[in-house]
Every structure is written in structure tokens, then in C-alpha cells.
């Protein structure tokens, strides 16, 4: 467990480093039919919003695109993001978003998971709902 957390923290740091090197576009997407507002993306990824109507939202991090996401969307550092989630998990008993390796993995997860939310560095297909584009 400790190793997973370490990897997660490392991936966050790597995402921050790599984000600047990535492309300019970042797409926040959800499972088809999840009509999430762009302003709600932050709450979803910080554990403040766990349901949209009756659909349980399942946010996932994209290790490759996370630095860009933290910078453009959450506007916080990776450390702050990890700390916030550490407190959140202790206080509210919920786990932080799972960290998936790349766009393809994230896209696949979102397609098959009802309520799945994530972000991609590449333009998503029409089979998912684009919530916001950065």
C-alpha cells in the first residue's frame, strides 16, 4: 500500500514535470450520457462531488496528462493535490482517484465505467462526453 502511494506520488510529480512538455490541449471527458458541467470538474476530482443525480462519479487520473490537468484545471501542485487527498481520505473515508497510465487506458476505463470521468491529452472519440477543453 505504501508502495502504491509512493508510485502515485511519483506519478504526480512526473506528471507535473511532463506537463509542460505535452501538447497544448487537455480534454476532460466523462462516460457517455454524464452531463457534468465544467465548473464541477474540480469538485469531482477533489472528492467534493461524488454523485451526479443518481450516478456515482468515478474520477481517474491520467498519469501522462496529470501535471497539465493539475495546472490547468485544479490549479494546484501535485504535492498539494496529494495532501488534500490524504486528508480527504482520512476524514471522509474515501479513496483518491485511481491513477491510470495513459490516454488509452483512461479512455477505455471511461467507456466501460458508468460515471467514469477523466482527462485526455488527445482529442477524445465521440463515444465519450467532452466536459471541457483546456
Amino acid at each position, binding site marked *: 500500500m505504501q508502495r502504491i502511494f509512493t508510485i502515485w506520488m511519483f506519478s504526480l510529480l512526473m506528471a507535473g514535470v511532463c506537463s509542460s512538455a505535452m501538447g497544448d490541449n487537455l480534454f476532460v471527458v466523462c462516460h457517455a450520457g454524464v452531463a457534468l458541467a465544467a465548473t464541477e470538474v474540480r469538485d469531482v476530482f477533489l472528492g467534493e462531488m461524488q454523485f451526479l443525480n443518481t450516478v456515482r462519479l468515478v474520477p481517474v487520473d491520467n498519469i501522462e496528462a496529470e501535471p497539465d490537468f493539475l495546472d490547468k484545471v485544479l490549479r494546484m501542485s501535485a504535492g498539494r493535490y496529494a495532501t488534500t487527498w*490524504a486528508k480527504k481520505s482520512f*476524514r471522509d473515508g474515501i479513496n483518491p482517484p485511481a491513477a491510470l497510465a495513459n490516454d488509452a487506458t483512461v479512455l477505455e476505463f471511461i467507456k466501460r465505467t458508468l460515471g467514469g470521468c477523466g482527462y485526455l491529452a488527445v482529442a477524445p472519440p465521440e463515444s465519450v462526453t467532452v466536459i471541457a477543453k483546456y
Partner: protein
Amino acid sequence: MKRATDKLIALQFLAVVLPIAVVLLVQMAADARRAARLEHSRPLRILASEARANYKTFTNGAADAVDTGSLGAQSVKALQTAAARLTELADHGEGTVVGDAESAVKDLAATLSKGATLSTLISLRPRIIESDTLTKAVDDEFERRDEFVVKDAISSAVYQKRAVTGALIITAILTVLFVLATRRRLKARLEADISAERERRAALETISVRFGVATRAARAGVYELTGDGLDLWWSDTMHELYAQPPQDFRPTMAAWLGFIHPDDRQAAQTAITKAMREHSQLRSQYRIVRPDGSVCHIASLAAVSTDSVDASPRLVGIDLDITDRVEADERERQLQQQLHDASRQAGMAEIATNVLHNVGNVLNSVNISASIVTDRVRKPRSAGLGKVAALLQEQAADLVGFVANDERAKHLPVYLAQLAEHLARDQQVTLTELDLLRKNIDHIKEIVSMQQSYSKLVGVPERLAVANLVDDALRMNAGSFTRHGVNLKCEFEDVPEIVVEKHKVLQILVNLLRNARYACEASGKPDKEVVMRIAKQAAGVQIAVIDNGIGIHPDHMTRIFSHGFTTKKDGHGFGLHSGALAARDLGGALRVHSAGAGQGATFTLDLPFKSPEVIYD
């Protein structure tokens, strides 16, 4: 009416009370059940809540450790407290609900019993989150159960409220229905009562009108006198009877007595006092003097009533104007007296006629005998004897020479012998006539004597043989029957003696025989016959006078005994009437039967063995 109303009210009360009582009883049982469940549920929920709260204190402490770097002792203590509460829950028999939470928290508490750094906490985060989930589930479960109990209590209270509301509605509906039913029933009863009351009033009004008309027609006044005599009420007809207008006169006892004739006042007052004192009926008769001086005869009938509210006796009665009746009674009494006198005179005349007739018959014989004796006396044989005596006196000087020589002397013996023979024959005739004369005088004496005996026995019943009685009657009429050629036939049965007033029976029989003789005579038949029959009856004796005379026309049958009715030229219409009355007085009856005109008639006199009210034995 009152009983029916009370019953309706009782039913209405039950209708109101019963639903509420049932609801309250059911709700009391439900309340007791809910209280028991709450008493069991609430401590468990508190324990679960405390376990959860302490665990959250611990997780908050863990979150704070992200900033501080280590877990505080308070958080550790809270974690241990949470573990203890979960253990208590398990000890209360809720192990199934507590499940893995107890062991997970206890293990965590044991691991962190001495505090922990952030890295330790991070490493334990899955277990912390899992325990958080478990404690939350336990807390949620007990909260759910407690809320269920509370909700059940609330729903039960709501149900109770609804039930009470329903009961009240039912009660209200039943009340309305009962009120309507009661009202309808009471209305129907009231209408029936009113209708009955109207009918009673109408009937009373009718009775009152009839009573008024009747009392006015009967000239009867109604009065009511209280027991103390101070309060006296008169009806309008009473005022009219006493000629005292109601508006001018207020009746009082003293005034009432003042109207009564002085000769009758004391008796009237005594009768009233006695009736009031003895509560007996009052029947008195008195005269009143009206203001105009006229005297009115009053019959007062009253009775004492005690059915008033205060139970004081009241004398309620009527005063009847019987002046007409009294005057009629007086006139009738006078008429009766006149009739009695006439009857007496008629009877006397009848008897006198009979006596005179019989005596007259005898007197004829007396007259004949007297004439014969007179004739004998008027033609005396002694005249020739005087001539013989004078011749002998003339020849007294030479009586011998005369007898021897005179031629006349030679005829003297023959003459004297013939004279003696004539004198003896005259004496015999005279003696015979005188004897007949004596017998006739005795007969007259007997007739007079019999009449005198009848006169002495008037009104006195006596035991008599019926045949003798009939014989006397026949004897009194025997002369007329013989004179008019009416054959008399007697058919007498042996009958017991009867006790009657002789003269009344004779009066009846003499009348019947005279009528029979008249009927036979008037018929002109050659074979006039009257049958006198005596027969025994079950309760007395029957005497029948049967004639074959002119008979009785059917139209006359109903009036034959009426006073004044007669078919005879010189009749008075009194004989049969008085005969019928006399027969009734004797306890018997006088009847007639005739097949019609020319068919003769049969009069029957039924007499009891003993006349009523006869004391003589």
C-alpha cells in the same frame, strides 16, 4: 315518550364513547409496544453513534496528522473508545450488526495504541478507510433501526391521530345520524302527540259543545264546590237556571243557599254537608226562588271527587230543572186520583149495577108474591060470612025455629063448608107466597151480604179456591146470562188454592163475563155460549173466558186494553184497562186472543200461586 328519548340519548352516548374508547385502548397498547422498542433501540443507537463519533475523531486526527506529521493521543484515545463502544454493542447481542467493525477497529486501536507518524497512518489508510466504512455501516444500521422505531412511533402516532380523527368523524356521523333519527322520531312522535292532542281537543270541544247543548236542553246546571266550601264554580247553564247572569253574580255557598226555598234550605245544606263529609253521592231535591219570584223545582245530583292536584275533595254535580216533571207528576197524581176515584165509582157502579140487577130480579118475584097476597087480601071470603053472622043475629030470638023452618037456614051448612074450604085454600096460597117472599128477601140479603163481604176484604190477599172464586163471579152474572139466553159451560180442572186479593179477581172476571155476554148478545147467534175454563199452569193458574160472540177485529187487538177504548155503544173503555192493571198488580197477566171479527174471543187471566209482595201465608 320520555323512555324512548332516554334510550335514544343512551344509544347516542354509546355511539360517541365506544369508537373513542376502542381507539384509545388500541393506541395505549401500541404506545406501550413502541415505548418498549424505543427503550431497547435508543441505547444501542447511542453506543453506535458514540463509536462512530469517536472513530471520526480519530480520522480527523489522522487527517490532521497530514499537517502535523503524527497522530495525537486524543485521537488514539478516541479510536480506543470507538473500539470499546463497538464491543459494548456486541455484548448487547448485536454482534451480527457490528460484524467485522469491532475487530477492525480493535486491531487498528491496538496498532496505533502508542501513536503513529504520518507514514504509518498512510500505510494504514486502507484499514482506516475500511474501518471508517464499517463503523459508518454500524452507525447507519443502528440509526436506521432507531429511525425505524421512531418512524414507526411517528407513523403509529399519525395512525393514532387518524384513528382518533376517524373515531371522531364516525362519532360525529353517528351523532348526526342519531340526532337526525332522534329528531325524526321525536318529530314523528311529537306530530303524533300533537295530532292526538288535537283530536283529543276536538273530541273535548265536541263533548263540551254537546255537553253544553245537552245541559242547556235539559236545563241542567253544573257546579263544583271545594271541600272548604269557599270556592264555588257554576256553569253558564247553572247561571241560567238560577237566573243570575255570570257577569253580575259571583256564586258563593251563602248566595246559593239563599236562592233555595226556606222550607227546603236546611235539608239541602244538610245533604251537601253530608256528601262532603262522607264522600258519598248527593241526591237531593229542593225548590229555588228566582229573582222574579217564580219557584223552580231542582233535583241535585253530585259526587265527591278527590282527583285534583291538591287532593282536596270537591263536590261536582248538576242541578236539574225538574219543575215540569214535578208539575207533570202532580198532574198525573191528580189524574191518577181522579182515575182512581172514577175507577172506584165505576167499580161501585158496577157492583151496584150487579147488586141492583140481582136484587131487581128477586124483587120481581117479591113483587109478584106481594101482588098475589094483596089480591087474596083484597078479595076476602069473609064478606059472605058476615052476611051469615048478620042473619043469625037477626034470627037470634027464635034461632031454633029459624033453623028448622026457614029455607035460608037450610043452605047455611053448605055455604059455611064451601067458605071454610075457600079460606083454607087462600091461606095456603098466601103462606106459599109469603114463604117465597121470605126466600127472595133472604136472597137479597145474601147478595147484599156478599157485597159487604167484598167491601171488607178490599186490599187483603187471602187464600182462595179458584173454583169458588169463579162461581161467585158466575153467580153475580147468572141472571143476565139466563135472561139473554147465553149458555154457560164450565170446564174446571183441579188446581191448587191461590193467594190473591179476591175483589180484584172478581172485578176482572165480572168484567170478562159481562163482555162475553155482551159479545154473544151482539152476535145475534142462536147458540150463544160462554165457556169458563180453569187450568193449571207451571207457575200458577189460568182462568179463561171463551165466547163465540162477535170477536175482535185485528186492528183492535193492540188497543183492546187501552184506557178509553171500547166498541160498545154505552161502554167506557175502562173495564179491560182496569182489568189488565189489576192482573198486573196481582203478578199475573190478562191476555186476549181472537181469530177476528165474528170468530169469538178468548180472554185468559194468568194468576200466580201467590201474588207478589203478599206476606199473608
